[in-house]
């Protein structure tokens, strides 16, 4: 039986979940937290999100969406244009090319792999910023940001998993 129009619309709108959640996380990462010394090492939440969806539902977010998210982030964060897309594309590119490795792996393994992928993403962004501004920004801050990103992965992944179970179980 062919699905009705509304059934298809339902499916299509549910499939936007990864994109919507990534955009929300991007906005959340810009909220001033009032925690001492937190903002200059705040985690790269969009990298976590892109990684999560590339691992668990690679069919729902393509390179194009990831590129646009990175671009939007650069626009809003006043980072050099192109630095955001590069780091997100690197994240997704690595996961997509190693899709066989990621299939059916436990949480611990995915987290461990994220350790490596996030390092690549952080270095890519760092180099892009250095390239555009022709001066090397502080490596210590980037290292701390990387540490924070890895540390935040379980929390964000847990939230993403709740949403995935609630909205994408059947579609």
């Amino acid at each position, binding site marked *: 039986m062919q699905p009705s129009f509304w059934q298809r619309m339902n499916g299509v709108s549910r499939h936007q979940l990864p994109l919507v959640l990534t955009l929300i996380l991007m*906005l*959340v*990462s*810009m*909220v*001033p*937290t*009032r*925690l*001492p*010394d*937190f*903002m*200059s*090492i*705040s*985690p*790269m939440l969009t990298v976590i999100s892109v990684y999560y969806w590339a691992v668990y539902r690679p069919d729902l977010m*393509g*390179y*194009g969406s990831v*590129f646009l998210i*990175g*671009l*939007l982030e*650069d*626009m*809003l*964060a*006043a*980072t*050099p*244009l*192109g*630095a955001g*897309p*590069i780091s997100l*594309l690197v994240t997704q*590119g690595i996961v*997509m090319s190693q899709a066989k490795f990621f299939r059916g792996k436990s949480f611990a393994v995915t987290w461990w792999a994220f350790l490596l992928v996030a390092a690549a993403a952080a270095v890519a*962004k*760092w180099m*892009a*910023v250095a*390239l*555009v*501004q022709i*001066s090397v*920004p*502080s490596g*210590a*801050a*980037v290292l*701390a*940001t990387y540490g924070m990103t890895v540390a935040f992965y379980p929390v964000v992944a847990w939230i993403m998993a709740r949403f995935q179970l609630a909205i994408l179980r059947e579609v």
Partner: protein
Amino acid sequence: MKQTTPNPNRLNHLRMLVSRFAFIVLVVASFALMLIGKADTMLVERVRTFMSDAVTPVASLLSQPASTVSAVMDNLRELTAIREENSRLRDENARLLRWQTAARLLEAENDSLKGLLNFVPGPRASFVTARVVADTGGAFAHSLLVTAGSRELVEKGQAAVSGEGLVGRVIEAGHRSSRVLLLTDINSRIPVSVGNARARAILAGDNTERPRLLYLRSQVRVQPGDRVTTSGDAGAFPPGLPVGIVTSVDDGDVRVEPYFQRDKLEYLRIVDYGLMGVLTDIDPGASRPATSGELR
């Protein structure tokens, strides 16, 4: 039997090729964007300003709970230390009253001396107060979005000041929002003078919490604890705005701790000192007037 669907293997292969092609194209596009961002800054800035304007209401909404939570936490913290705080403030008040007398005397003396010298006062400063709704960039850029834009007469190049001292300057002014580049950002360069000797230098951010002093003459002795204020050179800021304190002097690497705390910034004053800041767009029709704020 006639085959109606293509071979799934081949389809998968094709899909993979397309995806790989898209990846390469988008990576190249990212590098192209870096070039565009360098080449056509006007266009990029206009798009950025538009996006910031669009997102500011959402960011404003999102930042409410954060500030409420922090206000409650602050309240609790203050309640526990209210007695000590009170006695400390009483002492401080007594000390400040003595300073007030001294300041009054100096003010009167200063006024009469200015009268003797025919001193030309700098232009009057006016300001708007704006709420900080987003703190962006993380380790890669240090900037804030605030809720005041060109409709509140905020312009590019104006100084952003908190209660403690200089925070940064406006680098983009949209209609209802503007972006403040913190003095810790890698793109920030501020002419300052250091210590009682008023040695001139440039305070350069590098995305850490402690910006560096550049172009300090080597014979000038700078010590930790020296006060850093704006020098007024280049007409970017009026002279004498408090900026920070020298924290470490290490083999030519002089670090300054700004007075403002990034996590405490909730409201900022955007001040128009009537100076032609260094960030004003170049207008070929008008010549730059001499900066008036440098008279001391």
